[in-house]
């Protein structure tokens, strides 16, 4: 990783360049960088020239092969989905968890299970709706609170800021659920030469993600149409539905996805990762099957939890149909290709990939 850069560079290269994902990795470390809603800003330059913020950020130089080697012990063989051990369909066995969960409730079920088994002492989660359109990050210290964070809010949340704060105080091992950019930042923290508590994160569950929305424009769009504090659920059903479903206490509304796309964060257009490739476990939907999840097991630590959870009847799994798998591959590859095109469009130089560093072999496969 590049050394010798600090908050001033972060501001210039990431924040002012519109690359910030609002992951929160740079927030909560120091008093200089703050977030409100999903807007991150350097309030005042701190003067440090080799800072954690720059080092942790998922949009500063990121060497994919090096991370692969660090986390998985080898470089990826699968260019579309990243390193993995297995891919299956999974579902929480508890019906309440399934009902509260976005799809199969696997994320919530596994999180609560890992906590109750003492694998992790607390988890950083994101409460999707808390009488506001903006999700809030929370440190959950009791497995019974996990379900209160079930469901998806498509607005980017600076969840890692909560992790940074937790790491300053927390003495127990931690878990985290995050988007691909957040899991990437977590891995950069763990790889950083700067001391931080992220080695205490023992379970990283990554969500699938095509894009996230920015609060301000989406809020403006919804204003007058619904009362944002009454939202109970957001959903983007699989193609060909092509819509965003908003469930509120007052009823359900649907918006064509094409209307929503303009609120997508600009940085999502250069995002290379759809399936949280650096997580222990990655979870997404299964196209066409409502209350099941796609589950990618990537690390031995992830596999161990899944095996135990199956044994203890927390989740059940079954093979993911071949058609779904190839669809997933296509979608993920498409995101990568689009990202590369968009990056080159922005830099005007096909050798300047902004934050991304890919091996020549990988690049050839993708181009």
């Amino acid at each position, binding site marked *: 990783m590049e050394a010798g850069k600090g908050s001033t560079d972060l501001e210039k290269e990431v924040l002012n360049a519109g690359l910030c994902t609002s992951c929160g990795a740079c927030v909560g470390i120091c008093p200089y960088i703050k977030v409100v809603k999903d*807007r991150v800003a350097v*309030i005042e330059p701190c003067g440090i020239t080799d800072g954690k913020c720059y080092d942790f950020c998922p949009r500063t130089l990121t060497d994919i092969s090096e991370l692969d080697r660090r986390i998985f012990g080898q470089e990826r063989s699968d260019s579309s989905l990243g390193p993995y051990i297995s891919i299956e369909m999974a579902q929480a066995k508890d019906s309440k968890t399934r009902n509260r969960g976005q799809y199969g409730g696997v994320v919530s079920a596994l999180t609560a299970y890992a906590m109750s088994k003492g694998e992790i002492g607390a988890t950083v989660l994101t409460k999707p709706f808390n009488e506001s359109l903006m999700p809030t990050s929370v440190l959950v210290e009791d497995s019974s609170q996990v379900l209160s964070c079930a469901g998806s809010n498509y607005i980017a949340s600076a969840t890692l800021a909560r992790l940074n704060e937790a790491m300053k105080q927390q003495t127990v091992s931690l878990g985290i659920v995050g988007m691909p950019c957040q899991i990437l930042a977590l891995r950069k923290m763990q790889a950083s030469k700067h001391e931080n508590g992220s080695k205490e994160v023992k379970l990283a569950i990554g969500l699938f993600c095509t894009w996230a929305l920015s609060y301000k424009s989406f809020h403006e769009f919804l204003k007058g149409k619904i009362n944002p504090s009454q939202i109970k659920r957001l959903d983007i059903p699989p193609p060909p539905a092509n819509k965003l479903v908003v469930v509120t206490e007052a009823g359900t509304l649907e918006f064509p996805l094409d209307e929503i796309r303009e609120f997508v964060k600009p940085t999502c257009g250069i995002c290379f990762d759809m399936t949280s490739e650096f997580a222990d476990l990655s979870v997404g939907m299964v196209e066409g099957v409502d209350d099941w999840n796609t589950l990618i097991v990537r690390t031995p630590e992830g596999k161990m939890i899944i095996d135990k959870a199956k044994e203890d009847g927390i989740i059940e799994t079954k093979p993911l149909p071949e058609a779904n798998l190839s669809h997933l591959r296509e979608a993920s590859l498409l995101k990568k290709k689009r990202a590369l095109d968009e990056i080159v469009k922005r830099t005007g130089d096909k050798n300047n990939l902004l934050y991304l560093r890919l091996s020549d072999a990988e690049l050839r496969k993708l181009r």
Partner: protein
Amino acid sequence: MSVIKIDRPGQSVLMMGNEAIARGAIEAGVDFSSAYPGTPSSEILESLARVAEHFGLYAEWSVNEMVSLEAAAAASLTGLRAIVAMKQNGVNVCSDFLMTVNLSGTKGGLVIVACDDPSAISSPNEQDSRNFAKFADLPLLEPATFNEAREMTKYAFELSERLGLPCIIRSVTRISHSRGNVELGELPERKRSPSFEGVSIAGAFVALQHAALHQKLEQAREDFENSKFNWYVGPEGAKFIIVTSGTGWFYSREAVAALGLDSEVGILKIGTTWPLPEKFIIDHLKPANELLIVEEVDDFLEQNIKVLLAEQAKTLGPIEVYGAKSGHLPACGEMNQDKVAKALATIKGVEYSGRDEAYAQRARELVQPYLSPRIPTFCAGCPHRASMWAIKSALKLDGRDGFVTGDIGCYSMGAGPAGYFQLKTIHCMGSGIGLATGFGKLGQFDFNRPVVAVCGDSTFYHAAIPGLINARFNNSNVLMVVLDNAGTAMTGFQPHPGSGIDALGEPAPVVDIEGICRAIGVPVKVRDPFELDEAIEELCDLLQEDGPKVMVFRRRCHLAETKERPQKKVFVDPDKCIGDECGCARFCSRVFNCPGIIWDPTTKKARIDEIVCTGCGVCAYLCPQGAIVIEGN
């Protein structure tokens, strides 16, 4: 016991100039007193309020100088004697009423004390309020000594009553705020009973009223011809005369003595500077062929004397006049003995070195090690520091290059490092919101930078409400932040309509700031600025709203707080402090910069300066490491 209460006529007592003015009012049997606080005038009403009960007089802190003068004028209209005190900017505020009550006239003695702040030590401007006397055709008195301040005030009531006109006394910082001997006069029995008959209407037969006003002023001039406040000292038939008023009297005397010019330079001291006692002046200037005019701030006296000289050219012959126009003395800044001596020495061609520069340099070097370098900043524990940080943070997070319009109060320092250079405009009371309403309407010209107007609680009542109403009426995009520290902190914590007590310290109804905002129809939020994260988030949310909106940052001035409650002990846990490292980089002592926190370069840790710290504890909230501990928490 208050010195102005002492009942021993003839005794000499050490008094502050403002107390001498208050004593003069007491000796005149003043019934009614009102003021809005402002340096260097505040102690006049403070002194009167302290003895109000004792003498049975009325004293109030008014909401602003205009209302203050109007209230005092009402008392005068019933035949009571009334005094109103203000700083120079206050004269501007009340000038609208002043320019009409001069026409309609008054009844009981009405004295307006205008205290100018030359060099603007505590003001946004420097101004010579004497011009208002000429502008409004009102008699003007300028005390030169402390005892004269007392005597003049007493006389001003009598004159005002005789003429049926308000009378203006012009003081300056070095009169108002210095101390000197004052000879006590008799304390009268107050016996006036008010009645209001007839009408007091300006604007009816204005031309007649105006002509009558000029006649009254002529009467004043006649009175001034034999005034004891005008005198001459020096050799008979002096060819060189210093004409001076106010503080210039002492400076001139010292300068003449220092240069050893007593035998050739005379001093004509004028206490009644508008209208000028023309005959008196002409008589004394007859032998002279050179004049030096010494006064503080504008060349007010100089110009009026020059007019007189021109009119009397036949009698007086050619006289050379030195002063501001000739460049010998500045028409700005505080006057002093040195400036006068230099001017005099230049004109007379004598040696004068003033204070030896080498000596001054040595004195500075000797003292320097004992002075800690300090920028003008908010006190330790001041809520404004947190408010400014919140505003800075919110504007940065908002990301649209928003900026702040400032107003008058402690928080004016927010234009400098104390407030992280946030304030981009500062003018007069209420101008922050006024300017903001304009900036907030420039969207149609593609000027879309968010604008935040700050104003203090006292300023809010004083002058900001019309601006806010304008913002609402014209739907201007402004965020007004009321920095409510529960008092008029800048001038010494005088109560205001939100304080719940009056000038005498008695309980008073509270005029609720939020209630006013709501009544205007503007959304209003209230936050403790020490809860910074919430405060910042709320500001960011408000900035997103169109139209006017108000945030009240409410936290009492911590100095006032510690007077009533024992202050908490705060300390730094050196094991937790990470100092220069990434994650802090000396945030508390270098960036947030409360003077209560110091950086210890030997241990490379922050430390609390126990002498300066007021125990407010906001740094404990801000420290990223939780290294700052509040004892007992």
